[in-house]
């Protein structure tokens, strides 16, 4: 039996309908101890892992990002929310220089990972991408076996030792909460997994290279609620080891999983703060309107 079916559905998060009403407290995620506050106190004092400074980005003549300033603290989850086309994904893809693949892109400003500027001349993009794991909107496992999918990142780095690979695959699959489900069929094609399993496999694949930051581009948008709950639980676990930036369209998800939230609108960061604060007492009127569903 599919273990996913054993999981209870996450409690739906009810957000306030009117502006005058006080927003009810966000329900804690299932599996997360209720006694803990939504944001770990440790998050508040964590050093910054990723710093975006005055980032401007153009697609040809059209500017897509305007003066983005953003700080992601180590071992926290930062969610990027905002209406479609506001530049969340573009920013995310700028963080591991995936936008390099698009010919017409021009970028100004800096992104610092630790002490290194990603956009400084002479940066080894290949090395950089190893430090920034990425999980995509639609699960995209390679048409290879489950084992080879997870081992891919290590293999392209030249790792040949069977034992090392096996160990890394097991750790990553455990880290992604998939080990128990697939340990007996590592040799089978990854395409035979269910949608939720495939997405967790993609997460495991990203974990296998031991990145510092995990970028997630709407990782649950193609998943059913049960699979979504599993991934969210996983994000909660993963932040103990990784710094996570997640783009999401689901306000509930942002509220459930993230410590910090940044609200984007038309290529600008409107507001960024503790998730609790954004969802209960946003400073900006626009943020409040968006969160309460008045636009976007």
């Amino acid at each position, binding site marked *: 039996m599919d273990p996913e079916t054993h999981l209870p559905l996450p409690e739906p998060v009810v957000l306030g309908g009117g502006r005058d009403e006080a927003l009810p407290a966000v329900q804690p995620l299932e599996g997360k101890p209720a006694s803990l506050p939504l944001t770990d106190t440790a998050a508040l004092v964590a050093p910054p892992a990723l710093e975006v400074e005055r980032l401007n980005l153009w697609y040809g003549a059209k500017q897509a990002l305007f003066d983005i300033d953003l700080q992601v603290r180590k071992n926290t989850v930062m969610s990027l929310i905002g209406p479609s086309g506001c530049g969340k994904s573009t920013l995310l893809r700028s963080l591991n220089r995936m936008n390099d693949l698009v010919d017409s892109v021009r970028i100004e400003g800096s992104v610092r990972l630790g002490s290194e500027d990603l956009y400084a001349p002479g940066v080894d993009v*290949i090395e950089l991408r*190893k430090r920034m794991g990425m999980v995509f909107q639609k699960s995209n496992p390679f048409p290879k076996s489950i084992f080879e999918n997870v081992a891919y990142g290590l293999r392209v*780095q030249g790792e040949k030792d069977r034992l090392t690979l096996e160990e890394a695959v097991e750790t990553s699959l455990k880290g992604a909460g998939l080990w128990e489900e697939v340990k007996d069929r590592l040799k089978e094609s990854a395409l035979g997994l269910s949608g939720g399993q495939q997405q967790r496999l993609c997460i495991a*694949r990203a974990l296998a290279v031991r990145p510092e930051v995990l970028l997630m581009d709407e990782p649950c948008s193609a998943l059913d609620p049960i699979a979504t709950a599993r991934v969210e639980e996983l994000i909660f676990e993963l932040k103990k080891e990784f710094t996570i930036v997640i783009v999401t369209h689901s306000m509930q998800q942002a509220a459930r999983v993230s410590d910090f939230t940044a609200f984007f609108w038309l290529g600008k960061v409107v507001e960024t703060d503790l998730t609790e604060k954004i969802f209960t007492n946003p400073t900006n009127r626009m943020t409040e309107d968006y969160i309460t569903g008045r636009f976007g």
Partner: protein
Amino acid sequence: MKATAWLRRGSPFVWVSGGLLAFALLMITTLVGYIAIKGLGFYWPKPLVELTTTTGPVLGEVTGHEAATAEDPERIQIRTANRDILGQDFRWVPVSEIQARTTPPEALVIERLENGTFFGSLWRITQDGKVLAEGPGAPEEARRRLAEAKALQRRIQSMEKDEVGSLNQKLEDLRLRRRKLEAKGEPTAQAEAAEADLHNRFQHLQEELEAFRAQSNGLQVTLRTVDGQEKELSLAGVIRIIPVNTIGLPRKVSVYLARLWEFVWDDPRESNTEGGVFPAIFGTVMMVMLMSIMVVPLGVMAALYLREYAKDGLAVRLVRVAVNNLAGVPSIVFGVFGLGFFVYTLGGSIDALFFPEKLPTPTFGTGGILWASLTLALLTVPVVIVATEEAIASVPRSLREASLALGATKWQTIRQVVLPGAMPGILTGLILAMARGAGEVAPLMLTGVVKLAPSLPLDAQAPFLHLDRKFMHLGFHIYDVGFQSPNSEAAKPMVFMTTLLLLGIVVALNIFALRLRRKLRARMGGSTF
């Protein structure tokens, strides 16, 4: 009102397109059916008819009928065989001259290694001049001894081909080595001694062979035609004896299958109008395989560069246009190029560099299977390039990004993700290329196909694969047998059978590639296409 609705739904177009498809199918079925009937029908044992005419008796198979015309009376065509006695295989007999028509039970079809089939009777069988059987019992006795005679014949043939052949090869090698030494001015005594020794062995083998031949020739049969002419023949020269008018269906089926088997697996005889076409089958398949081995890397590399590395601009667009136009160049032009560049320039240089001792006999400086395959690879490379480009473009972007995001380089991504994903599409290109390549004849005629190749391009003699050898090809075989043969009427069934075989081989090669593609697609989970 109803008519407009009918038009608006496009019903007439559905009918027209459906009808045209049916028409196309009908044409293809007719084509294959016609070829199959004409070719396969020939091998069925037909009854021998004896006609008593005013000009004497005629024995043969009835093969045609012609109504009276202004010049000719009504007449029938008889295949009389006995080419050596009558001068030709076919004969027209005016119906008015026929007095009686019987199917004599004693009439035999005797297939011979030389001079084609014999129709008539077997009168006597002798061994070293002693009569073993005469009269009605002779055919039975001859049939009994046929297997034994054939075994002896095979022994002689294998001796001629393998032992004498390898000795000849060694002698030739020695001669070349001696010439090399002479050219350098070094002593040649050792080589000469070895040569003399080989000559001795050669002599010995010849004597042995002579003895076998004498034994084989000792068994003679006397054949008699319907009008009483006699013909002596060594039993070893007989393939099979069929009392065609008395055998039942099972025997007929077995004769039919034996003839088909002979057609597919035997060497040709009698300037290709009889026997089998095995060397041509082998040559065709091997040529197509060699072509595939060369065309895939060539086309895939070119497409990869065009699609993945080259900056899209005027130059790339020009290259694309050129590639597409290349696909439309008449194949004979490629043949001329192959002859001029591959055979004369490239082959000539190879000979001058590596085989100077053999000159003026060319090794690679003449047409051969290597040059023919290369020419065909060039001819079909545009197909592979276009198909590969499309296949590469259809590998989902998300997979490339996933790979790049994991720290893979562009080349690793291409190698691990793009190429495997594009494999089914590349194979589609290969299938198209093979279908085109297997059917080409014109460029091959200039670059290495021959009417009769003495040995296959792949055999047991080192270095096993002889890329410099000339080869036979089914397509050329059709042309040769049908239009260059001295006896085209007799060769007609061969033309149809060879055509059928060529079709079959193209289909078989395609099915092989299709299965490979399906297997690959299944492994890709069908996600890429």
